[in-house]
């Protein structure tokens, strides 16, 4: 219904303005209805300006900047409509160390109400987990779960390396 869409849109929009600034350490972002007079059919435009930079189309953002803006969007939905759990598969692939840390810090703000299951190759992301699940193929072609201790996370690839070829 029109009412419900407007409520959701307004909530997500406010969250996005805030969470973008949190993930980028400043700057400005917004989502806009391309056709405010036709709410039920309107498309949605995204504008984003990292701190210190001028406003330009989001296509020009770097790979890491696009990921951070997208994460701000995803978590804005979460804050508007909490979900009991969240699965994030290698969302940090394009992020440098500093941005990985900011993304990890943001996750920390949501764990009260949401259970997170992440997949990552990044040691930094592994370090915020309460528990690590190792998945490996000791027998080729067959997956197996093994327990992994945090101290092993640093050499996780040797610990979990599949059977030598």
């Amino acid at each position, binding site marked *: 219904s029109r009412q419900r869409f407007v409520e959701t849109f307004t909530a997500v929009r406010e969250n996005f303005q805030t969470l973008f600034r949190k993930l980028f350490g400043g700057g400005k972002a917004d989502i806009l209805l391309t056709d405010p007079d036709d709410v039920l059919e309107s498309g949605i435009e*995204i504008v984003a300006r990292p701190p210190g930079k001028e406003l330009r189309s989001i296509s020009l953002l770097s790979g890491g900047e696009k990921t951070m803006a997208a994460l701000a969007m995803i978590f804005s*939905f979460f804050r508007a409509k909490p979900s009991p759990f969240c699965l994030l598969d290698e969302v940090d692939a394009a992020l440098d160390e500093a941005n990985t840390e900011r993304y990890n810090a943001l996750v920390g703000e949501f764990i009260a109400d949401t259970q997170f*299951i992440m997949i990552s190759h990044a040691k930094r992301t592994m370090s915020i*987990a309460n528990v*690590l699940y190792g998945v490996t193929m000791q027998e080729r*072609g067959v*997956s197996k779960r093994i327990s992994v201790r945090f101290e092993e996370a640093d050499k996780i690839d040797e610990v979990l390396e599949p059977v030598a070829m």
Partner: protein
Amino acid sequence: MKLKKLIVAGFKSFADRTEFEFDDGVSCIVGPNGCGKSNVVDAIKWVLGEQSAKSLRGSEMLDVIFNGSSARKQSGMAMVTLEFDNSEGILQPTANGQMQPSETVSVTRRLYRSGQSEYLINKNPARLRDIKEMFLDTGMGASAYSIIEQGRVSQFLQASQEERRAFFDEAA
């Protein structure tokens, strides 16, 4: 309504029955390329009722059944069970049209090579729509943003203005 336990057997690369027990907070699945981490995400999507083989990276739904390795024969069936902590009573499972409140709710899906499917809620036979209806209004139905698949994080940014609209509508 947290996830308590995931059990996979014969699902994709998990030829053997494998259990994952999940706690509160943040869990991280780690391991080398190609070892089965994203297959765990596929298993959760599948048991919650995913009907698109493409969305599970396959070309047909039978692709989710373990189809053998150089040392193993293929499985005859794929099975996934997901157990939820329902101590807050958010989920209201029904069996035979009757409400059956329970502290833990488990959902099971099976697919046989014959193409035959089975669904269970708390060990009782159910239909796919019973599972979908049970999760409606729990915030989980719109997995559009609670499950972010590998390579898809920037999807919302790259989508067209109309596609983003559809995303909102689904979440609203």
